[in-house]
């Protein structure tokens, strides 16, 4: 049986690779082309590549498993987070960055901030902070992929072969064709995920007599799931999670860099209004399938996930194998983009300022992709609890950057000292809380730290407030340093 399943997954991987290699034929040997597809992405590709990038293993595994155990309110968290808040940030941060990138040629966030504030230190700091949170998160995706393959084959394919194989596939098309290849394969993967999850829901509902019957079964087994709120879902949890993740997402390198890659303002406009629709289309079936499974008496093995379990019970094995392919698609489409963005952050914002411009930046960028992927793979083999915890809290780490960046984009009074204080201060607070509370301390996760110390709010939220206080307070108290260039962002009165 495992042969058919492996063949399906293998065929899918080969298809993704083929799309990536077709994109390679259009590639120029410049850094802007490699990292941003020469700022040429249109509506459909930009929408799907951002969307597929946003969706990690959580869509197929973590999310539905959470709604299976705790009820379907995560749909509200997701809708508020990615449907509304992220859409607004898409305009406020994304469109503004796109305009600046078009005028000034920026490729990374660090570059954009370093230029405005005349500060190599800020540039290296922002890239360093980003890479610190990014690497463990990439590692988590590879780990998920490896475990999915082990689960699919009942252990016939060992973990390191599964995770290593996926890593090699990604390296192949990311190295060959950069952003264009990533964006095209993401589009394929996004379409595939949508088709798959709806197919799964229709199949299972047909087998159990429709949504009303499924919900009645749930009303018997877990009536509290149908009631809004309760249990895990406090107002602080719903709002806090949506806020810190939405703000964190905008500073995740692979998302933030996409703000520079749109071909025109019209593309950004169209994409902006499609967010809420796409979020419902993808997450409603995934989360409801997980929730209904609780009423259908599906048993999830310890540490396992609900979607494979529910499909094993109601659909044939080949269809269940497609799930794993869908989940692998979700993981790969996140990781490939992270590898590429991580490489650009390292090459442009860490290597170049410290060691000088590379002669052939696109070539160095490719070498860094390989290095980054291999490092994350090696980490995934030895994954210690601390690294897993850093990866799991990465969204909150990125969220600490967002408010200072918004201040820089909109408030001309923002100073270099204010930016440095806000970035360093908020990171120290958040990382300090993680280390003292969770890694060395008694708490199981950041949520329980928040429940004890911050009135039920995730520590990412007080951290964000601190970053805002610091950027505003310190900027007011200091004057611009020599080398700052307000004109780079405001009113076209550029000093040079």
């Amino acid at each position, binding site marked *: 049986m495992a042969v058919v399943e492996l063949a399906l997954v293998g065929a899918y991987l080969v298809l993704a690779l083929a799309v990536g290699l077709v994109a390679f034929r259009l590639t120029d040997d410049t850094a802007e082309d490699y990292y941003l597809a020469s700022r040429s992405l249109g509506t459909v590709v930009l929408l799907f590549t951002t969307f597929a990038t946003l969706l990690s293993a959580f869509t197929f595994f973590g999310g539905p498993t959470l709604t299976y155990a705790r009820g379907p309110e995560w*749909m*509200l968290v997701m809708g508020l987070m990615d449907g*509304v808040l992220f859409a*607004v940030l898409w305009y406020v941060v994304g469109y503004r960055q796109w305009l600046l990138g078009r005028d000034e040629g920026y490729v990374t966030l660090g570059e954009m901030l370093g230029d405005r504030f005349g500060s190599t230190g800020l540039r290296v700091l922002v890239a360093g902070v980003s890479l610190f949170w990014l690497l463990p998160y990439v590692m988590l995706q590879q780990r998920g992929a490896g475990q999915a393959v082990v689960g699919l084959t009942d252990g016939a394919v060992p973990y390191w072969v599964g995770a290593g194989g996926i890593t090699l596939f990604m390296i192949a098309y990311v190295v060959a064709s950069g952003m264009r290849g990533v964006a095209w394969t993401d589009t394929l993967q996004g379409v595939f995920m949508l088709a798959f999850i709806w197919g799964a829901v229709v199949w299972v509902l047909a087998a159990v007599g429709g*949504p009303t*019957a499924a919900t009645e079964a749930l009303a018997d087994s877990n009536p509290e799931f149908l009631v*809004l709120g309760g249990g895990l879902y406090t107002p602080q949890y719903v709002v806090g999670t949506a806020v810190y993740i939405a703000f964190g997402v905008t500073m995740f390198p692979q998302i933030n860099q996409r703000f520079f890659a749109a071909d025109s*303002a019209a593309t950004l406009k169209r994409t902006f*209004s499609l*967010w809420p629709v796409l979020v419902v289309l993808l997450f409603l079936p995934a989360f409801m399938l997980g929730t209904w499974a609780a009423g259908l008496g599906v048993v999830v093995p310890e540490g396992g996930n609900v979607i494979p379990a529910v499909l094993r019970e109601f659909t044939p094995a080949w269809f269940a194998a497609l799930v794993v392919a869908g989940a692998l698609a979700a993981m790969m489409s996140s990781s490939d983009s992270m590898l590429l963005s991580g490489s650009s952050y390292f090459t442009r914002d860490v290597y170049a300022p410290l060691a000088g411009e590379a002669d052939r930046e696109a070539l160095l960028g490719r070498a860094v992709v390989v290095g980054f992927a291999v490092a994350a793979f090696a980490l995934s083999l030895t994954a210690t609890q601390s690294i897993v915890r850093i990866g799991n809290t990465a969204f909150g780490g990125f969220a600490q950057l967002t408010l200072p960046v918004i201040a820089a984009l909109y408030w001309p009074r923002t100073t270099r000292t204010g930016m440095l204080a806000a970035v360093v201060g908020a990171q120290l607070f958040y990382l300090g809380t993680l280390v003292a509370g969770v890694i060395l301390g008694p708490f199981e996760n950041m949520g329980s730290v928040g429940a004890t110390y911050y009135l039920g709010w995730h520590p990412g939220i007080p951290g964000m407030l601190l970053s805002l206080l610091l950027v505003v307070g310190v900027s007011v108290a200091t004057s611009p340093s020599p080398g700052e260039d307000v004109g780079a962002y405001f009113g076209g009165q550029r000093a040079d």
Partner: protein
Amino acid sequence: MVSRAERYGWILALAVLVAFAVPWFLWGDGRTALGLPLWLWWHVGWMGLAAVVFRLFAIRAWDDGVEGVA
């Protein structure tokens, strides 16, 4: 550029979209209809409304507050 009144209108509209993506007035309500909880239907409808409002914003007021800041 839209008028000042319209600009405030848009800020208010976006704030309302954020505020009621979660139907707070149905907190603790467990009624269902057509196989889904009522509060989930509200959310689905609200996301549709958000898409329409975003589209109108993109047509009418895009660039407002972003281009030529300062």
